[in-house]
C-alpha cells in the first residue's frame, strides 16, 4: 500500500509503532509532489530538503506528539518561518516570514512535518481558486472544473493524496467550499478557537479563520486538537478549554438525542436540484442514525448577508498602498473587487456591523428557541463550475424562476453566514452528482465552541455512509457546460 493512501490517523499510528520512518514519509511526499504538481498547481513552494531535515530531527526527538510525522501543507497566506508568504499574489515573493504563525508552531509542537505552501485564490479573495499568477489547481474529479477556493491548493493536495492534512483559511467559506467541491472534509472552527496570529491581514479579522482540510473527520479532529487553544498574543483569541476532540469522536455510536435544524429559508434557495436532493438524502441519513430533524426559521438572512459586502472593505487597509503603487500587479478580477470595496461609506460599514449583530441574534434564537444542536445545509449551491464559467443559473423554487448570478457570489451564499456569526461549521462529503460525477458537501453548523459535537456527529455520519472519500478521484473526466 502507498503510504500516502493512509489517513493522518493511520499514518501517525504506523510511525509511532516504528513500522515506518518519518524520513520515508518526507521522501514519499517529495516524490509525489515532484511527479504530480506540475499539473495540479497545488503548491506555490515546496522545500523538500527542509522537510527532510524536519523528518530527521523528529526521528531524533525524545517525544512523539499526536501528529508525529504527519505531513501538513500550509496555505500560502499563513506564515511559515523562513519561507515567503505570497498569498497567491504576484508581488509578495520577498515577504519572508521571520516566525511561524501560531497554528504552524502548534503543528510543529505536535510533531507534524510542515510541508510546503499551498496555492490559493489571489489574496484569498475569491471562491473559485482561479489564480493567474501561480496556476489554477484543477478539480480532482474533473480537470476542466475548478477546485473551489480560496483554499484551492490545500484541498487539491489533500484530495489527490499529496498530503493527508492541510491548513486552510476561511473568511466566507474558503475551507468548506473547496472541501465540498473536492469531496473531502473541511472545518471552520469557532472564531477565536484557533489563533490567527501569522495569518496575512488582508481580510477583516473578525470573519477570518484558520482550520483543517482532511480526508476524514477523525483527521480533521486530530489537526484541530493540535491547533486549538488560546493565544494571548491574538486579541481575538478566546480562552475556552479545549476538549479532547479525538477521544470524544469515539464516544457516540448513534445520533439519538441530537436535534438537527433544517433552515426553511435561504439555505435551500437557488440550489442545483441534484445537490438539494443529495443533501436532503444525507439529512435523511442523519435521521436514520437517530437524529431528530426540526424545521428552523432564521428570518431575514438574505438581505442581512449584504453586511458581508461592507465588512470585507476592511481588507482595503491592507491593500491600499499596493493598489496605489502598482495596481497592475493585481489580477483584473481582484483589482475590480478592491476598487468596489473603496465605495463602502463609513455609515454603511457601521450599519453592516450592527446588522451583523442582528444576524448573530437570529442564529442564536434559532438554536435556542428550536432547541437544536446543529443546522444542516448544503455547503455550496452547486458542484464545481467550469474553469472559465462566470455566471450560474440556478432554479429558485421560492420565486419560481431562474436567475443568473456570478459564480463567485453563488458559491459562498451558504457558507458565509457562519463567518458573520463566528459559529463552527464543517463540510463533509455527501455524495456525487449523477450527471457529472462531481462531489458536493453537506454543511453542519453548531453553537460557538461546539466543535466536539459537530465533529462527533460528522464522524458517525461518515462511518455509516458511503461517500466519495472512499473513491480516489481519477481526474480524467472532462465535461462540457
Amino acid at each position: 500500500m502507498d503510504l500516502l493512501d493512509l489517513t493522518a490517523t493511520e499514518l501517525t499510528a504506523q510511525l509511532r509503532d516504528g513500522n515506518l520512518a518519518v524520513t520515508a514519509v518526507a521522501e514519499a511526499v517529495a516524490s509525489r509532489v515532484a511527479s504530480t504538481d506540475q499539473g495540479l498547481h497545488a503548491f506555490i513552494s515546496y522545500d523538500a530538503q527542509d522537510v527532510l531535515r524536519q523528518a530527521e530531527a523528529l526521528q531524533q526527538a525524545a517525544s512523539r506528539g499526536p501528529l508525529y510525522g504527519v505531513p501538513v501543507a500550509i496555505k500560502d497566506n499563513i506564515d511559515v518561518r523562513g519561507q515567503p508568504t505570497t498569498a497567491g499574489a504576484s508581488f509578495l515573493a520577498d515577504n519572508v516570514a521571520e516566525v511561524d504563525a501560531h497554528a504552524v508552531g502548534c503543528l510543529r509542537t505536535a510533531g507534524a512535518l510542515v510541508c510546503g505552501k499551498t496555492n490559493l485564490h489571489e489574496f484569498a479573495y475569491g471562491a473559485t481558486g482561479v489564480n493567474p499568477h501561480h496556476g489554477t489547481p484543477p478539480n480532482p474529479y474533473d480537470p476542466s472544473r475548478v477546485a473551489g477556493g480560496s483554499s484551492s491548493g490545500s484541498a487539491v493536495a489533500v484530495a489527490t493524496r499529496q498530503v493527508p492534512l492541510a491548513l486552510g483559511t476561511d473568511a466566507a467559506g474558503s475551507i468548506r467550499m473547496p472541501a465540498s467541491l473536492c469531496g473531502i472534509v473541511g472545518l471552520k472552527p469557532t472564531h477565536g478557537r484557533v489563533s490567527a496570529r501569522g495569518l496575512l491581514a488582508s481580510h477583516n479579522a473578525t470573519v477570518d479563520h484558520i482550520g483543517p482540510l482532511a480526508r476524514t473527520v477523525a483527521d480533521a479532529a486530530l489537526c484541530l486538537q493540535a491547533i486549538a487553544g488560546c493565544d494571548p498574543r491574538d486579541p481575538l483569541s478566546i480562552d475556552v478549554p479545549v476538549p479532547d476532540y479525538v477521544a470524544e469522536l469515539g464516544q457516540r455510536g448513534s445520533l439519538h438525542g441530537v436535534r438537527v435544524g433544517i433552515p426553511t429559508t435561504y439555505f435551500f434557495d437557488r440550489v442545483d436540484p441534484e445537490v438539494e436532493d443529495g443533501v436532503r438524502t444525507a439529512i435523511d441519513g442523519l435521521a436514520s442514525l437517530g437524529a431528530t430533524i426540526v424545521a428552523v426559521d432564521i428570518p431575514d438572512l438574505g438581505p442581512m448577508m449584504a453586511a458581508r459586502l461592507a465588512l470585507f472593505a476592511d481588507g482595503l487597509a491592507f491593500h491600499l498602498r499596493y493598489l496605489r503603487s502598482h495596481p497592475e500587479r493585481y489580477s483584473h478580477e481582484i483589482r475590480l473587487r478592491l476598487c468596489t470595496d473603496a465605495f463602502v461609506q463609513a455609515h454603511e460599514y457601521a450599519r453592516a456591523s450592527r446588522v451583523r449583530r442582528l444576524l448573530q441574534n437570529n442564529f442564536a434564537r434559532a438554536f435556542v428557541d428550536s432547541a437544536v444542536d446543529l443546522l444542516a445545509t448544503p455547503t455550496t449551491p452547486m458542484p464545481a463550475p467550469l474553469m472559465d464559467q462566470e455566471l450560474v443559473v440556478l432554479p429558485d423554487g421560492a420565486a419560481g424562476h431562474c436567475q443568473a448570478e456570478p459564480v463567485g457570489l453563488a458559491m459562498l451564499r451558504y457558507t458565509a453566514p457562519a463567518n458573520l456569526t463566528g459559529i463552527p461549521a464543517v463540510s463533509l462529503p455527501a455524495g456525487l452528482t449523477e450527471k457529472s460525477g462531481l462531489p458536493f458537501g453537506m454543511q453542519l453548523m453548531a453553537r460557538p465552541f461546539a466543535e466536539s459535537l459537530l465533529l462527533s456527529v460528522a464522524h458517525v455520519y461518515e462511518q455509516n455512509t458511503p461517500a466519495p472519500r472512499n473513491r480516489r478521484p481519477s481526474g480524467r473526466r472532462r465535461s462540457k457546460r
Partner: protein
Amino acid sequence: MPNDSSGWTCQDHGIDWPERLQLITPQYVQQYLRATAGIEVSLREAAELVPLVRGQKAAFRGLEQFDVSTVRPSATFDPREPYAS
C-alpha cells in the same frame, strides 16, 4: 427587473431601483477613486465598476430595512455573546 453583474437585484431587497444609482457613471467612479482613495483606474475599468458599485449600493439599501438604532456591537468579537442574553 434591473440586474447587475454582482448578482444583486432590486427584487432581492424589496426596493425600487433608486434613481440616484444612475448617477454612478464611469466618470464618477474614476473621479471618486482618485479623490477619495488615490486609486487610478482607466475609464474602461471604471465602466466595468459601474454595475458592481450600483449592485453594492442596492444591497446596502437592503440593510436599511433593519432598525439598528439600539444595537451596540462589541468593540471586539465574541461569537458567544448572543447566546448569553
